[in-house]
């Protein structure tokens, strides 16, 4: 008798424990119900201007934003892995490029924002199949080379005007004790930038990406832009142009090394401006004296630009009508009433008609704008599965792959993703 009771009690206790552990916290409210908080996922390295926007919204609406920080190294994987579990924020901050938005199945998971006011005023929106899913609030990320002015001047060098100049610059700096190019292998994603930037000329107005998607071009064509970019990267590595600890350096280290004059150049994007200002002690004039920025492609000064994840907002479908409405309210504020203050707080270049461009841009910020004027969209923006480029380049950096094999691997990834995305012909 006692045994039976014991058995029953223990069984019930464990089932209760398991069930309580597995129980969800789903809640459902009416659209009219008052919302006091919204969860917002964003990259932990968010800019101060966007953080200021959050605070302004909280003050204006009385709604608390519960910020969920996602680490910036591996930001995409960390976000999508969490997303895959079925967990949903009320507001998602994520990339603006379609190739990275496709895997989140926007038609199924995001609210349609097409009818909102910001759409008609925005320079760009996240639009897939004629439906607006995301609001962009920041100037595009302009990809190019940060260089230390003194290092180049002291060695009789001009800022490079093409990738060929970069190779020459590397030769000139060999043996000086200064790393010609500081590469951030530990962060992973920056390693793809040199091949990506080298394709800018081929991808003007998205031409190369379109040719790949329509199967006019193949990614593993030995004479194609991708293999050329990977070959350039491989040659730079073989020629000793990168820092000796390239595989263990993070992008934060590389920015610091360029400011400190330990390296001549590093390839990153313009949204790290605030990090540079912070590192140099907040002195923007000193930063202008120390660091310059230039966009480079294979044979000319052409940058690559993509709208980035900072300040790109989506309103996921959560099943909670009140919170879904409040998330749209946040996007309305971010692109409307709160927008000009955010732009002024930077200062930032506005991306909405009717917004005033503030004064006070630094020389470095103006060089971003100048580079953006002639920039090409990244090849990675329009091709699903291109995210694997960073895996290919980290392998080349670690001497585990070569340009041809890398291009083949990327082609397989694109085949897999484009097929999953239902793109015609794939």
């Amino acid at each position, binding site marked *: 008798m006692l045994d039976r009771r014991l058995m029953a009690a223990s069984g019930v206790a464990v089932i209760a424990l398991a069930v309580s552990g597995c129980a969800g916290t789903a809640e459902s409210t009416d659209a009219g119900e008052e919302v006091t908080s919204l969860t917002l996922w964003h990259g932990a390295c968010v800019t101060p201007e966007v953080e200021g926007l959050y605070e302004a919204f909280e003050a204006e609406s009385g709604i608390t934003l519960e910020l969920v920080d996602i680490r910036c190294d591996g930001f995409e994987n960390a976000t*999508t892995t969490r997303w895959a579990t079925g967990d949903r924020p009320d507001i998602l901050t994520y990339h603006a490029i379609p190739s990275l938005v496709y895997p989140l199945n926007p038609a199924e998971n995001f609210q349609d924002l097409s009818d909102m006011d910001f759409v008609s005023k925005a320079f760009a929106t996240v639009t897939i199949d004629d439906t607006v899913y995301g609001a962009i609030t920041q100037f595009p990320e302009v990809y190019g080379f940060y260089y230390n002015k003194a290092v180049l001047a002291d060695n009789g060098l001009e800022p490079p005007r093409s990738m060929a100049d970069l190779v020459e610059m590397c030769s000139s700096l060999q043996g000086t004790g200064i790393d010609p190019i500081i590469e951030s292998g530990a962060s992973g994603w920056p390693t793809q930038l040199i091949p990506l930037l080298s394709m800018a000329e081929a991808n003007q107005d998205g031409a190369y990406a379109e040719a790949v998607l329509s199967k006019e071009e193949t990614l593993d064509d030995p004479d194609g832009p991708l293999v050329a970019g990977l070959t350039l990267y491989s040659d730079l590595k073989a020629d000793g142009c990168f820092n000796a600890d390239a595989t263990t350096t993070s992008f934060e280290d590389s920015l610091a090394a360029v400011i400190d004059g330990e390296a001549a150049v590093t390839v990153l994007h313009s949204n790290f401006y605030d990090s540079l200002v912070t590192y140099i002690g907040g002195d923007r004039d000193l930063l202008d004296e120390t660091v310059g920025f230039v966009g480079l492609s294979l044979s000319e000064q052409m940058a690559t630009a993509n709208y980035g994840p900072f300040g790109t907002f989506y309103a996921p479908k959560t099943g909670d009508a009140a919170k879904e409405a409040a998330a749209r309210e946040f996007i309305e504020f971010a692109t409307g009433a709160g927008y000009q203050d955010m732009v002024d707080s930077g200062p930032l270049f506005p991306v909405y008609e009717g917004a005033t461009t503030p004064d006070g841009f630094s020389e470095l910020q103006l060089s971003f704008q100048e580079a953006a004027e002639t920039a090409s969209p990244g090849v990675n923006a329009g091709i699903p599965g291109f995210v694997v480029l960073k895996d290919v380049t980290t392998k080349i950096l670690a001497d585990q792959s070569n340009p041809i094999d890398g291009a083949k691997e990327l082609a397989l990834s694109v085949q897999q993703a484009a097929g999953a995305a239902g793109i015609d012909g794939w």
Partner: protein
Amino acid sequence: MVTQLQAPPVSSPAGSASALPAGPRPRRRVTRRTWPFIIPSIVLICVFFTVPFLLNLPFAFSSWTGYSSDIAFVGLSNFELLASRGILWTSTAVTVVYAVICMLVQNVVSLSLAFALRDTTWGNTFFRSLFFLPVLISPLAGGYIWRAILDPEGPLNAAIGVVVPGFSFAWLGDPVWALFSVAFVDAWKWCGIATLVYIAGINSVPRELLEAAEIDGAPPWTRFWKVTFPLLAPAFTFNVVTTLIGALTAYDVVASMTQGGPGDSTSTLNFAVVQQFGYSFFGVASSLNLFVTLLVVVVAIPLVSWLRRREISA
């Protein structure tokens, strides 16, 4: 635990204690009194292992992705894809090497520590606690700490630099050393548990057997190999199996120390699973998950059977 004592045959004056014969393990009957203690484990295993495993099975053969709501049966094409992209074999090779290093380091170090700390003294109690501390640290935190230690400008290189001026080495930047380093850190993390198991095993060896061997003139090394080690077999089985399986399913230390790099030299199977989930290829990730499970089963069952055959009752 102790059901019968089989004393070793004591040989003539010059003889030494010989290997103890392996006897059949005593079978324990499950009685009505023991069921209440077994049921919670069975339920937990069902809820947290069996059900997820069964749910994972159909997805392993499906085209489930984050890209659309359509899920179709695709047979073995997920495995073909993983093989064609080199992910399956690279990650398997990395995982097996990683697991073997982890298992060897963990057991050798733990066994040595157990012998050094077997007596319950104030000093040994302190050191047992000290060596157990890493177990209490989050694997991610431990990984980040070691990543800083192993940094080219970190304290390890600085310490070596005292002896070898100008020494600089990127421990996590070299494909081979990175794998060894991460496996060592994983072993360091879990050594404390294995040490406690070995201490318990050593202290359960009957003193009279050791004394008899000593009277027979067996030197310390012989006493260890011929008496202590055979009687440690249950602890050895437990530690070898758990450390190996633990290492075969490694993820957290890898994620915090190297993110699978440099290149894919530390990309274990579980790391590859998470990566595929991150790319929204849930079906492919499920296939890889199934492969990990089968690998663990294929390794664990024969290993346990073989090790259990070696065990004897003390």
